[in-house]
């Protein structure tokens, strides 16, 4: 492993962790609203949330590029007001990863919330607990397995993201190059040994993430 490879691994792992944490509050919020209430437009939101899962990642990337680019609705605003660029920067990577892994988190969390028996929440309420307290002491702990599972899935998805990232953030060495982009580029350049090194790291990271989640979720011994 050389310095460049470490930098890529480090950057990919960090930005994946960061994107998973960044989408956590939104993911839980949306999942909870979908699991517990029915409201007008719910099916539309349901569909939108799952869309990045089925749309080609490159298409999702293109949508983001259109919105976040300097001529896009949000991108032009950020550029004008704060001199902040998203496209072709690490922020672009973060947003691409977050959007692409959001469905996995939201869907897992939603299922986890749905599996929490509402009667337990009712009982807590009759004992005088407020909504926030019920959510924090009953709903969240009971759903925690599914939520953690969803977070690990989201993290793993972020680690491997390619299509949306290359559209929004490009492949700038030392700035936006992630593991997947580096593997692709090294194969393109015929630098197979470097590609294999990064491949090995991806396998170890993915294996570790899944193994950790299984360990977290294993049945507790009494």
């Amino acid at each position, binding site marked *: 492993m050389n310095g460049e490879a470490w930098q890529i691994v480090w950057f990919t792992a960090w930005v994946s962790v960061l994107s998973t944490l960044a989408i956590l509050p939104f993911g839980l919020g949306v999942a909870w609203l979908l699991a517990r209430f029915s409201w007008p437009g719910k099916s539309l939101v349901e569909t939108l949330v799952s869309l990045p899962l089925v749309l080609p990642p490159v298409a999702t990337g293109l949508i983001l590029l259109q919105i976040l*680019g300097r001529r896009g609705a949000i991108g032009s605003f950020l550029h004008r007001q704060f001199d902040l660029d998203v496209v*072709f920067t690490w922020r672009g990577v973060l947003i691409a990863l977050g959007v692409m892994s959001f469905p996995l988190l939201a869907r897992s969390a939603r299922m986890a919330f749905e599996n929490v028996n509402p009667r337990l929440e009712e009982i807590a309420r009759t004992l005088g607990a407020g909504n926030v307290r019920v959510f924090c002491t009953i709903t969240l702990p009971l759903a925690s397995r599914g939520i953690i599972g969803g977070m690990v899935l989201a993290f793993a998805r972020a680690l491997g993201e390619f299509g949306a990232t290359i559209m929004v953030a*490009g492949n700038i060495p030392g700035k936006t190059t992630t593991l997947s982009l580096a593997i692709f580029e090294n194969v393109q*350049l015929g630098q197979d040994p470097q590609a294999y090194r990064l491949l090995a790291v991806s396998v170890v990271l993915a294996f570790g993430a899944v193994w950790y989640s299984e360990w977290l979720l294993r049945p507790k011994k009494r």
Partner: protein
Amino acid sequence: MPPVTDARIGSVKLVIQTIVLFVALFAAGLVNAADLLVFAAASLTDSTKEIANDYTKQTGQKILFNFGASSTLARQIEEGAPADIFFSADEAKMDGLEKKGLILAGTRKSRLSNSLVIVVAADSSLQITSATNLTDVGIKRIALADPKSVPAGIYSKTYLEKTHLWTVVEPKVVPTDNVRAALAAVESGNVEAGMVYKTDAAISKHVKVACEISAHDGPKISYPMAVVKDSRQPEAAKALLDHFNSDAAGKIFERYGFIVLK
């Protein structure tokens, strides 16, 4: 074990029929063996397509293209991609294939030359009169075809090194897959400037040429073409190469801004 019913057998049949249908459709859509497959540098997209269209009209020979960075195409040919002709944007990629014995002996010819230009978005107000302006603070990002591998990027880097600008420019570089992707990045306004071939700038309405690097100052740009050794129809490929070499094709290349080499 539930009993196997007629309905179940029926559904299995349906699945198999669907699979067979898909396979048949897919096979029918595959490349016809008689079509020629040309791997050509991205910068050749519009010109070679026009020339190939004329050729197909005259001879009935169908031609398919795979456009991309010459580095990518060379790599694909190394891996056994079924190319009949390789038309590269630099000699180095062709040299690489020739050394590996992947080029049909005696068919290689350097056909075209080109020059580099610095482009900005058509609505840009940046004042760029020479490559030195690329070091200005107002220019934060510069799109180049990947200078590590793609010819247009390597040519640009060579020029910027020669003019001692590279060390300042390098941190601003947004490397792209091929030269047309660099052009698109400038068109989108997401980078302030880019370096592409003069011929690429000429086909885009959304960019303007800020400054042209004269053929004298710039690196020597050369586009070689050759028949690929593993071509299954070398005669047809040679005939098409002859057409690319013809005066009629030369006129079309010139119209797109290429310099035709004799």
